[in-house]
């Protein structure tokens, strides 16, 4: 039975050369992760601790959120609470219009992607400039990320080179060298940093004991975005709160090692106060479904995720089908699961994008049982057709009389044309159990 994922994956696989590159690239990242993990004797201990800290924090989230918000307020930060995407978007718009901001630079945030913030702000006349290089490329191209950490991985340097020529970022034509293109983007983004009225970041962690936001980047774009404008807005999902610096040490050590195979990101930035006396710092705590997921007895542990991306890097299906084959904006094993939490009707097609090999849960730094969760979703959410087949089989096999009669007349269905009966499916003239082996 084909699903939306399998159909899109089939299209992805048509370009064999690119598929091989995609597969090998992510396998390379996975190998990098392994080298990092094996380089630390305490790795498995860290995973256990990371999982336990998250379980503890999530099971006392109300207490930690209050502590976080209280400490942030003491630091002079304006804390906002957004129940859903709409409320989040309107809070951001109010802050910006209140300060007369026309242009905002921002670093990477999957949360703003989740809430559809950029199109909303742009519809209200505010220019939003992505400053993570990958995100900027996608913004210029009008595309969505295909990976949560390496968003523009589906584009080649020629694609980017042509895009930059088209947008006037490159000088002249034909130079598609990544170093040159990165430099041209640097010059172009520098102008944006200098002319923006506000800077926005996401958050990798919120520290309850200090009320700080911690952001990890390699490019330093979160720091550039917030060091020049006087207004800073940081968006954080509720589940990103952790107790204190000791907990942060555990996660900081694992995030980048798991995600990209580096020992650390280049920048691990702690934002506690507004940048200057006449500046403002707003933190927006976003629910948008998270409290509801927290109450889901079978799947609440998915909220432990720190968005490192290691589950998709290792996933044999992701590596060979690409981020755009999934219907949810986060792909891979964690995306399959989060999509099911968000809207099972819409995203159950992604459940087919899993071989249950379990590789994801072996690398997950916070020990989410991602593949087991997908298995569980499959039991909970059979597609309508599968549900019908299962209930008919259940009735037939439970009752010998029905079974004999049913399998005895099943061959009458052979006259049905496709698509009612696929060409490869033909029913025998006697009950299944009395078929000889060679008849099967």
């Amino acid at each position, binding site marked *: 039975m084909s699903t939306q994922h399998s159909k899109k994956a089939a299209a992805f696989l048509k370009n064999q050369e690119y598929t091989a590159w995609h597969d090998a690239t992510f396998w*390379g990242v996975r190998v990098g992760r392994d080298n990092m993990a094996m380089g*630390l004797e*305490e790795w498995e*201990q*860290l995973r256990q*601790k990371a999982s*336990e*800290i998250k*379980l*503890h924090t999530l*099971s006392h*989230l*109300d207490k930690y*959120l209050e502590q976080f*918000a209280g400490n942030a307020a003491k*630091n002079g930060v304006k804390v906002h*609470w957004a*129940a859903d995407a709409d409320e989040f978007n309107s809070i951001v718009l109010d802050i910006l219009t209140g300060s007369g901001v026309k242009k905002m630079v921002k670093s990477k945030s999957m949360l703003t992607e989740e809430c559809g913030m950029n199109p909303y702000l742009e519809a209200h006349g505010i220019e939003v400039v992505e400053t993570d290089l*990958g995100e900027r490329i996608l913004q210029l191209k009008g595309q969505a990320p295909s990976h949560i950490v*390496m*968003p523009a991985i589906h*584009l*080649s*340097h020629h694609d980017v080179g042509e895009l930059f020529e088209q947008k006037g970022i490159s000088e002249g034509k034909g130079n598609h060298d*990544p*170093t040159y*293109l*990165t*430099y041209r983007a*640097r010059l172009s*983004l520098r102008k944006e940093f200098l002319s923006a009225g506000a800077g926005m970041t996401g958050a990798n962690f919120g520290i309850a004991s200090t009320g700080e936001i911690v952001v990890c980047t*390699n*490019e*330093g*774009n979160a*720091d*550039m975005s917030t*060091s*020049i404008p006087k207004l800073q807005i940081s968006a954080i999902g509720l589940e990103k709160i952790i*107790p204190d610096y*000791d907990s942060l*040490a*555990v996660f*900081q*050590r694992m995030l980048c090692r798991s995600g990209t195979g580096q*020992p*650390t*990101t*280049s*920048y*691990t930035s*702690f934002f*506690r*106060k*507004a940048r200057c006396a006449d500046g403002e710092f707003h933190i927006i705590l976003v*629910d948008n479904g998270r*409290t509801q997921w*927290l*109450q889901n007895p079978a799947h*609440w542990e998915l909220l432990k995720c720190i968005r490192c991306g290691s589950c998709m890097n290792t996933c044999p299906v992701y590596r060979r089908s690409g981020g755009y084959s999934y219907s949810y904006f986060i792909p891979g094993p964690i995306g399959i699961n989060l999509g099911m939490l968000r809207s099972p009707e819409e995203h159950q097609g992604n459940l087919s994008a899993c071989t249950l090999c379990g590789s994801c849960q072996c690398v997950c730094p916070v020990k989410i049982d991602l593949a087991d969760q997908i298995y569980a979703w499959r039991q909970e959410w059979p597609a309508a057709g599968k549900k019908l087949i299962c209930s008919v089989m259940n009735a037939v096999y439970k009752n010998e009389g029905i079974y004999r009669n049913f399998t005895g007349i099943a061959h009458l269905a052979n006259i049905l044309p496709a698509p009612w009966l696929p060409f490869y499916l033909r029913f025998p003239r006697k009950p299944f159990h009395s078929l000889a082996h060679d008849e099967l």
Partner: protein
Amino acid sequence: MSSKEEILGKCRTQQDYPMPRLDDIAAVKYPDPLTQFVAMSAAVGGKVVELQPGKDINHLLRSLFPEAVNIASNLPEISLANRNPDTVGSAAELDGTDLGVVRGEIGVAENGCIWVPQTMKERAVCFISENLVILLPKEAIVNNMHEAMKRIRVGDYGYGCFISGPSTTADIAQVLVMGAQAARSLTVVLLP
């Protein structure tokens, strides 16, 4: 009911997982943390130079960056500096800085991170400079992030950053490039 009350109400669960001990983590330690720090700094694309006792830091910086024209620092010992992040009119005035010089407080052997709390009015100097130099006392190296997190202090400016190597990206075709949006090179000067 405000969103805050509603959200907090919905966060209350019947689960009760204890906070794990973290003081029993058998974190990596090195026989010589300084050697490991130097090796890691190189691995992340940074450079480490040692200031010999009795030598002038300005001479060293000039020899390392002979072509630097605009040099920004608020450190009194950096007489080369011709821009001061404490007194510039705005952060944007630091654009075009060839060399920024700041002080780091803690170096981390396991990953080359250096704790740089904001100690200047315009922290942009740490990012906007083409080349960044961090002065770090040689004895300020710890083994790992657990040790570092116990020591860091975010000062009155309300900002601090662990910096490890220059600004990097691999967003174009997974090719590693130094110098994305922030400093294109990082040099750590170890002070005696």
